[in-house]
């Protein structure tokens, strides 16, 4: 599904501004602070997506914020892909995690604090969904983390770990792209990421991973974050041996060398 013509757009925008990395770091820092405050107030999806008032409101917001890149009718331009058939799930994910509106052209659109309220996001999502059918925002019942974590771990290992790291710590892809860390990502966005396949992530359709499979993956990720990290103490970012090695050299051996200097020091 979702045969995105965005690859062409991405390729056309392969250049990277020299300050891009600086900006990325800044954005990363800002996101951590901002995202939590805003995301924690998720409105319930009760504002019915069919309501034509919402659609009109969404269309206005779209024209003001998104049309420059995605075209007035969301049919796509050289700057951004067509949004026909991406569904409300994609809009909710992209706007809710602050990826859209895209801040600048880079190897990968980064997350930043979302610029819109959930009601506004729902309105735009309703507008895009009204253009052509596509994956909808997931039902709450898949998101409560009550699935089978053991099955979820197995699915995660097979389908996601090669990009996101086995502990969900994130990983490098080619040409400056990266799979982000999954710690602290809301259940809704995990589901939406799987059904829409943002940017370089593949789409996991319902034929590929059933909604129950997706719920299991979410349950595993939630279990892992809430219970498994921190069992043995501070987990050093879940980065594994690289972090452990740096830690023992700097703090372990560092502390001990400090003591040796102290022991052999002569009073002056």
């Amino acid at each position: 599904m979702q045969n995105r013509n965005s690859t062409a757009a991405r390729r056309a925008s392969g250049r990277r501004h020299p300050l891009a990395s600086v900006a990325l770091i800044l954005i990363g820092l800002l996101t951590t602070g901002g995202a939590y405050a805003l995301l924690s107030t998720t409105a319930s999806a009760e504002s019915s997506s069919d309501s034509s008032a919402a659609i009109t409101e969404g269309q206005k917001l779209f024209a003001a914020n998104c049309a420059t890149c995605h075209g007035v009718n969301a049919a796509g331009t050289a700057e951004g892909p067509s949004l026909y058939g991406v569904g409300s799930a994609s809009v909710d994910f992209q706007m809710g995690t602050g990826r859209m509106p895209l801040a600048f052209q880079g190897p990968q659109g980064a997350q930043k604090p979302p610029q819109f309220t959930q009601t506004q996001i729902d309105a735009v999502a309703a507008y895009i969904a009204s253009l052509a059918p596509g994956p909808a925002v997931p039902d709450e019942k898949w998101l409560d983390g009550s699935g089978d974590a053991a099955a979820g771990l197995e699915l995660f290992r097979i389908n996601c770990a090669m990009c996101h790291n086995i502990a969900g710590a994130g990983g490098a892809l080619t040409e400056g792209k990266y799979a982000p860390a999954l710690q602290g990502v809301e259940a809704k966005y995990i589901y939406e990421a799987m059904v829409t396949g943002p940017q370089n992530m593949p789409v996991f359709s319902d034929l590929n991973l059933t909604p129950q499979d997706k719920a299991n993956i979410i349950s595993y990720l939630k279990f892992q974050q809430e219970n498994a990290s921190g069992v043995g103490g501070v987990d050093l970012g879940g980065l594994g041996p690289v972090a452990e090695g740096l830690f023992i050299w700097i703090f372990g051996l560092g502390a001990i060398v400090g003591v040796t200097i102290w022991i052999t020091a002569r009073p002056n």
Partner: protein
Amino acid sequence: MTTAESTATKSGVKAAGGSKFTSAAASYLDERTAISGITKELGRKIFPDHWTFMLGEVAIYSLIAILLSGTFLTLFFDPTMTEVHYDGSYVPFKGVEMSAAYSSTLNISFDIRGGLLMRQVHHWAALLFVAAIGLHMLRVFFNGAFRKPRELNWVIGFVLFILAMGEGFTGYSLPDDLLSGNGLRIIDGMVKGIPLVGTWVSYLLFGGEFPGGVIVPRLYSLHILLLPAILVAALGLHLLLMVINKHTQYGGPGRTNDNVVGVPVMPNFAAKAGGFFFVVFGVIVLISTFFTINPIWNYGPYDPAPISAGTQPDWYIGFLDGALRLVPPGWEVVLWNHTYSFNILAPMIIIGIFILLVLLYPFIEIWVTGDKREHHIADRPRNAPVRTAIGAAGVSFYAVLWAAGGSDVIATHFHLTIEAVTHTLQALLILAPIIAFWITKRVCISLQKKDREVALHGYESGRMVRLPGGQYHEVHQPLDDYERWRLVDYHDYKPLMIRPGADGKIKFSQRLRAVVSRWFFEDRISPATPKELEQGGHH
């Protein structure tokens, strides 16, 4: 604190009169084992009081922590690959099929009191052990403490380093989790990359097609039996040779090639060292209490299908992984229907040569300098500029490979592209050692020049004096004898001269040796001679 200065001579010490029982027990033991001679010798052993001399001890103490915690682990670890259904308290694995090795490691972590702490002590101590050996080795290298009569001990020490890496790798593979399985898969690939025998050796190792069902028990025998036995034996030999050869020491008045100045082991040093043991142990246990290491429950049981992003080995294996990661693409060659994987062979050969060079360095230097005398005074690194520079080049070569082992983490954390990181490191692998060599040598030589200046003319005091004739002159403060000794007490090597052999010919090896020797010593700065010192004082 006073530094009891005494020289290591063989004067006897009268046994202190203890209680009746202890002296009776002591003489009982002594009559049967002659142990008093040994304790006397050890007790009188002199230990130099500079912090760099304690790094080896750090290694020994972490080894003790490893042995103790490892013994605890053997009580609960099941080294087999029998398939079991997990039935412990970690919810996401309920009923999951896994090997008994992985399941028992989970049990150690979650269901055995103190088990997780012991696992973490064992693993953190292992990292510290190898790190301490590494730093200790650098100390020995840069002080020239590997020179005669200690060449053999350098070799034994380096073998210990390799054994420790072997212990670490085999241990890391035991829990049979996803990361350790990925590591074994890489070893499997490397073995299979060896021409002709590779595939058969791999079959032999894994008892058939990878991963098979026998590798964990086999690694287990290596890990808890064979390697520790060799390691402890080699360590014993290492320490014995150290006692026989005595420590090197930094130069200074009263410190000569024939004595060792410092504190005798008994009682002061033993007390300090005993305390230090608890410090090292305490640091290890504190780290293990507060910081996770190898959270195998995050990784899941080994299964050849899934691969995780950011799979790395422990730090001491990282340079090998890095070497593999830096190989440019397309190095497989197909010849007569056989694929030759130079992407694997080249790093193996290069690392093999590197290891051999480090192992044999003392003999290489002896060959170059032609120096057959004994050395007990540690060189200040600046006084051996080329050796120090070679060391710096070696360290940077290793460091680049090491960094390459974490190239993906570098890329994501500094928002760089993985290609840029890889290409930069590829260039650095060749450039960094050259640059490091050159800079280090220059720095050493300038430091030597400055020492010479100071030894001859004293320190600049910053006090300007106007002479009767109207000239200005800065007063230089002369050094005291201790300081001056430190600055001028080193050997002035000269490049070897080529001499024709008995048959009047100059052999090629002679020429080569002369060339290397000239390269070693051409830019040397001679220490200030007593005559110069005498003149230098007044001018």
